[in-house]
């Protein structure tokens, strides 16, 4: 049943002279291109794009789509990514012409519905985070991190303080230190303890008046709530620093605890995780940030505000850091998040987190008999198991388990992250999976660990492709189809 012909590349499928698109005839008096443009600017021929018929285009991409695992087809317990079901009503909302066909420079009077939605989003995100101001502009979590760090830099510049350091725990996501460096700070790694928490002694030695921000992921990338959160926040605040909360794990605490209440001065959201924006095979996301009152003047511009009974874009913000992108933001993602929050309401959002945590703990209670979970017998929305015993005893690695799970129709958990856990398998079931799915997954995982190591080393066996040669890909890079 495998279709090899139509999954050849579009370049192989191309035949000179074939066409799919027909454009209308030019209905205005036509000039020679050479009369309109300087000769040196005109290309002799158009770029060498492939030439396909429309049915060929469709068959090609539809066949490619079937070579993917996805939330709509498979259980996808990819830790840190919150691969929950993406409600179809959100897709319908985003496709409505009254939202999709709006130009960003239309006058505000023609955008009142859009601006109202965005205004309500600002307010709702502030309430969920317990923080006082919001910018919807950043395009993804990492972009929100960068924007917030630039907000912090502007704030300290305004205070006349020169602070150069950003503290980042060693189990943080790679975007945290990368954002710190990109924002012009020195990223300083903070140790975590064997239990997976911030090492307070190490914090003590690294904390001084040069620290601008401590970036913390709470619940952490190990799926644990930081027990010393209050102490950490107090100490950082005491030296005049700020707490940044990486909000990638908000799915654990919606309506249960608010970053603003546990010491955060700024946070981003990943609406493409927490609020069910589909991940699109890599994106889009959005990365709205919320901050405390004192940081509000520095937020990117514009922000939606009300003026009488009208919604308007506020550009008059003299202390703003400016922009981190063109136009308003990843509005289509925000609209899906809006639909998600509105259909859940306050109780529903809390229920989301309760069930995300219940599902994760239930799966943990089953998995811990198969693979050790070094950091505790309870978790929040996800947990990190380790295959290091298996590796020692049977030479089976986390990667082997991940690949073999694909044979059984499960997307692999996140492997080898966080870096602090050897042979890490980070498992996040999300609230939209049933007990039966979790049971079946745990049984499969158990069955795999009992299998012959050689079988696992060669896994996956049932997929069209198995164990790509990554070294070759990097050493002899082929990054495009030859012309």
């Amino acid at each position, binding site marked *: 049943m495998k279709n090899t012909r139509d999954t050849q*590349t579009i*370049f192989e499928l191309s035949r000179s002279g074939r*066409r799919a698109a027909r454009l209308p005839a030019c209905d205005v008096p036509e000039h020679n291109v050479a009369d309109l*443009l300087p000769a040196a600017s*005109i290309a002799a021929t*158009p*770029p060498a*794009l492939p030439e396909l018929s429309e049915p060929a285009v469709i068959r090609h991409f539809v066949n*490619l*789509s079937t*070579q*993917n695992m996805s939330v*709509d*087809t498979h259980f996808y317990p990819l830790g840190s990514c919150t691969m929950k079901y*993406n409600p179809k009503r959100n897709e319908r*909302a985003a496709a*409505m012409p009254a939202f999709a066909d709006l*130009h*960003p420079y239309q*006058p505000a009077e*023609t*955008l009142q519905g*859009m601006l109202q939605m965005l205004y309500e989003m600002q307010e709702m995100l502030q309430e969920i985070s317990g923080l006082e101001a919001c910018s919807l502009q950043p*395009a993804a979590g*990492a972009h929100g991190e960068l924007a917030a*760090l*630039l907000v912090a830099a502007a704030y300290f510049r305004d205070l006349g303080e020169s602070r150069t350091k950003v503290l980042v725990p060693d189990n943080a*996501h790679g975007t945290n230190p990368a954002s710190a460096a*990109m924002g012009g700070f020195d990223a300083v790694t903070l140790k975590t303890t064997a239990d997976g928490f911030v090492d307070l002694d190490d914090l003590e030695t690294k904390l001084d008046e040069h620290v601008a921000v401590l970036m913390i992921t709470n619940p952490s990338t190990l799926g644990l709530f930081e027990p010393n959160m209050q102490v950490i926040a107090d100490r950082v605040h005491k030296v005049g620093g700020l707490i940044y909360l990486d909000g990638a794990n908000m799915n654990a605490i919606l309506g*249960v605890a608010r970053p603003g*209440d546990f010491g955060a001065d700024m946070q981003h959201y990943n609406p493409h995780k927490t609020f069910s924006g*589909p991940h*699109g*095979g*890599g*994106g889009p996301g959005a990365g709205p940030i919320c901050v405390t009152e004192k940081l509000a003047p520095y937020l990117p511009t514009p922000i939606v505000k009300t003026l009488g009974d009208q919604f308007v874009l506020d550009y008059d913000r003299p202390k703003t850091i400016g922009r*981190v992108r*063109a136009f308003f933001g*990843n*509005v289509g*993602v925000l609209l899906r998040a809006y639909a998600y929050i*509105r259909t859940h309401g*306050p*109780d529903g959002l*809390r229920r*989301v987190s*309760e*069930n995300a945590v219940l599902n994760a703990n239930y799966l943990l*209670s089953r998995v811990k008999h198969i693979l050790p979970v070094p950091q505790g017998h*309870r978790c*929040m929305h996800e947990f990190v198991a380790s295959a290091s015993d298996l590796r020692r005893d049977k030479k089976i690695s986390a990667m082997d388990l991940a*690949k073999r799970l694909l044979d059984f129709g499960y997307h692999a958990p996140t492997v080898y992250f966080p870096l602090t856990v050897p042979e890490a398998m980070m498992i996040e079931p999300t*609230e939209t*999976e049933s007990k039966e799915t979790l049971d079946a997954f745990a049984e499969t995982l158990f069955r795999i660990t009992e299998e012959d190591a050689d079988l696992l080393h060669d896994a996956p066996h049932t997929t*069209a*492709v198995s164990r790509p*040669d*990554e070294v070759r890909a990097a050493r002899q890079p082929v*990054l*495009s189809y030859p012309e």
Partner: protein
Amino acid sequence: MPYLYNTPEDQRAMLEAIGAGSIDELFDPIPAYLQLDRPLNLPPALSEMELDQQLRLLASRNRHAGELVCFLGGGCYDHFVPAVVDTIGSRSEFYTSYTPYQAEASQGNLQAVFEYQSLITRLTGMDISNASLYDGASAAAEAVLMATSSTRRFGKVVVPECLHPEYRSTIATYLENLETEVVTLETPTGVVDPDLLAAAVDEEVAAVVLQQPNFFGCVEDAYRVAEITAAAGSLLISVFDPLSLGILRRPGDYGANIAVAEGHTLGTPMSYGGPFLGIMACDKSLVRRMPGRIAGKTVDRRGNDCYVLTMQTREQHIRREKATSNVCTNQGLFALRATAYLAQLGPQGLRETANLCLQKSHYAAEQLCKLDRFSLAFPVPTFKEFVIRDAENQVAELLSSALDNGFLAGIPLGQWYPQLADCFLVAVTEKRTKAEIDSLVHSLANSETKVTAEV
């Protein structure tokens, strides 16, 4: 509750297996004093039907480009989106998958990314494309960072005024806490002046950012700019319009070192400005400095061709603070849409689309300039948009009266360029018909403001 699968019995059984008395107990690790002791103050839950009603209510307060005739551009355009693109973009096997880290479970995405990269290199004439960035402006800022780190020139970057003001602002923000200074080049004639440029570039300049066609729609002498830039050992960053490449020379042809673009015009609707597609392509020599994901072709253990994410030692999940960028989530779905769009258009379709934009915008400019009060602010060749100067200096009134007649007639430029307060930017895509252009001209000719101005 929507989307919660577990029945109360399931929940009880699960709690029992966990050894917990209640769900609340699972939150015990959060100290009680840090827990929220009240429900969130949010509007109550809506059913799907009520949501639909709420969205329709909001929608009724928007006036979209389907009901108004859109002549707005400035980096976001009302281009046609073929049905094929929507069909492919709404395959949920694509849009509900994550970044293709597990290659065996993601060959569909990976091949699509590989094809996207291949199309972008052909479109731009550059060697290498990445898998996408957030949008055109942030891609331009990333290109600047790439230029400073690869040239080791952290002193300056030259940015002409005719680069999109929001791109300039984005670049400035990215550089705000770094040592690199943004040197803004005045462009009173609407294009980069070679002499002014030559005077501005020196051995401290990492890069010159050239928008082609520029923010005013004007076609730049890109070869000349490239020559001046290269002479100083600086890199040329081209900010191009993908559809213009159906007719115009490619960034690779005129010697750009990095080419970036806003790619929404390749099959993604305007969506109030996002989510969009940041395109980035570069010289071979710069690939190790490239931000973002890159897919490559390789073989698997059985010797079959296949695709993987590659050169990941550039990226944040491996290199952390030493990564080329912090980008993680990108705009994959729009790269897919662009791939489908370009496959559907083919070379002829691209050329014809570009030609329709060119011809129709020229026709519109000609017709508008037949009215006494209007002239081109910059009488140089343009591609699909142009700047109209209103001799009566009544831009706001003019645009507002056009709106009353159903036209989004243009973007007032005074908000970014005080010296152009009497000007507005008009864009004409392949979608605009002669009849629409004629009625726009008619509407502006009979604008109320003219009457009041004469009173």
